[in-house]
């Protein structure tokens, strides 16, 4: 009796939670339809995205703007994100595999970095020698990437609009 209670109880409670917190969100949010702000990647940008994942850029940069709006001259929602641009929508990420929403901001959020900085030359220079264009930055240099890889990575960053 007791072992059956252990196995059945442990797996039963686990299954219940998995149904609500994994299966339901899967039905609700996996493979969402695209909309006007969905990130769209060229083949080159997709290669750049794989480099972004491989080099662990996502450990220090988030790609999510939490909700905020200005009401009667005051910020409602998350003030910390109020200068980061349009708050993220779930459909923005419809093409993202894996997700790179991130959990830490050792460096700035990159959800709209492509709109903030649309010069490819700047991006490549910054990736090679961050402190040359951004004084006081503690980002590592990615000068060890090939020119082609840097170009792909810059294309990806510019696609984040």
């Amino acid at each position, binding site marked *: 009796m*007791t*072992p059956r209670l*252990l*196995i059945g109880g*442990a*797996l039963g*409670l686990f299954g219940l*939670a998995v149904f*609500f*917190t*994994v299966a339901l*969100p*899967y039905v609700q*949010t*996996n*493979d969402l339809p695209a909309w006007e702000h969905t990130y769209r990647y060229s083949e080159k940008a997709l*290669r750049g*995205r*794989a*480099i972004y*994942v*491989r*080099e*662990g850029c*996502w*450990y220090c940069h*988030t790609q*999510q703007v*939490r*909700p905020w709006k200005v009401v009667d*001259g*005051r*910020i409602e929602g*998350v*003030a*910390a994100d*109020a*200068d980061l641009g349009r708050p993220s*929508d*779930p459909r923005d*990420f419809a*093409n*993202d*595999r*894996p*997700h*790179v*929403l991130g*959990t*830490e901001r*050792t*460096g700035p959020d990159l959800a709209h970095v492509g709109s903030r900085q649309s010069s490819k030359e700047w991006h490549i220079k910054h990736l090679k020698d*961050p402190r040359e264009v951004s004084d*006081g*930055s*503690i980002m*590592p*240099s*990615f*000068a060890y990437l090939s020119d082609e890889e840097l170009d792909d990575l810059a294309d990806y960053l510019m696609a984040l609009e």
Partner: protein
Amino acid sequence: MLSDKKDSASERFLLSAVAWLCLSTSIGAMVALKFLFPEWLGSISWLSFGRLRPVHTNGVLFGWLSMAYVGAMFYILPRLLGTELWSQRLGNLTCWLWNATILLGALTLALGLNQGVEYAELIWPLDLAVAGLFVLVNWNLWATFLARSVDRLYISIWYMFASLLWTPLVYAIGNGMLFPVTYTGGLASIATPYSGVNHAAVNWFYGHNVIGLWFTTVGVGIVYYLLPKISGKPIHSHRLGMIGFWTIAFVYVWTGQHHLLYGPGPDWLETVSIVFSISLLIPVWTVVYNFWRTLEGRWSLFFEQPSAKFLILGVWWYFLTCLQGPLTNAIRPISKVLHFTNWVVGHAHLALLGAFTYICFSAIYYLWPRLTGREVGAAAAKRHFWLTTLGLIIFMVSLWAGGLVQGTVWSYKTVDVDFATDQAAITGIPFLKSVEMMLPYYWLRLAGGLMIVLAQWDFLAALLRSRRARA
């Protein structure tokens, strides 16, 4: 190599674990150094920050803590079940395979083979290997369970065997192993059936439950075993322990989305995670209260045995981290300031390096003489405790204070409304200013971290010295 000597698998697992602890914390210190000297070793791809960070996290999670847990269970569970471990040979084989998997994991991560999911970075073939290792451990321990000579199952047995069932499932879901594999992005051989915000939800279901249903529940099982052994008193309340077990089994699994508060995922899932996160205070309280009452009148043990020192402080760190999690990280108004800051990094370290690492140390100091017939030197044990503890306190204070600085600076905004056009202009403090303000805290973290690393190498040397003395 595949010895069938009693407890040889346990000893081998524990010693391997401590070796991974030394290596992984050393890599952690290298990563901490890179915050201050970003160019240091930065021109070599496999020594760059983004490659080494996952080696550090996977090393401490799956090398150090998980191997220490298996080593402890291989000793504890046969005793509680009144029998011998089903197969020492299989246990030793598991240990060799485990070490090989972690080594391959470290190498592939350094080479940039990364799935892009925090704590689930290992690529698909290694995911299968890790799952296989959990199957081997399950096999050995359930076979032991079937050969048991006791009727009543002590609290630790519930915690440990339930964790053994949950963890491979959590791992398989988190890594998307149950679905047909799809490869995208060639370079990183990323395999995921999940997309966008749903992938984030699965990521944190996994990330949180590998902590909750493996590191927490096996850790608590170890505490319940060591407590009566070290104090010489029966547990205050077996019933309270079982209430704790069933509440944590029910409550923990739902809480992952609190890593994504205000995120783009479903709001209802966030709210569910908040409610269940706060409910976690119930099982935590059962552990802490039971601990407190059992140790009543025996607190002086702290000064007498290293295992008691580490256990008492470990449970204290557990209490602190379990208050910090629900009450600061998992509540919207506080999360919106502290999310993405070093406050959260501090929380993760308090749980894994504070609570569960201390519990493992307590177990090793208690088990070591019983496994090898030799004590660890008393002076070495004291050094280990005080250097680790002082380092940890410096480390924690730097991360929390730094996190408060980041959160405050980022949240400081001025709004200028032009009433003629009804347009609002928002100005904040430049991000780079907050980076500059963090530097003193990064230095402090490095100082605390180096003390911790030094203490672990010293600990490994002490274990090896006592082993040599036996031979």
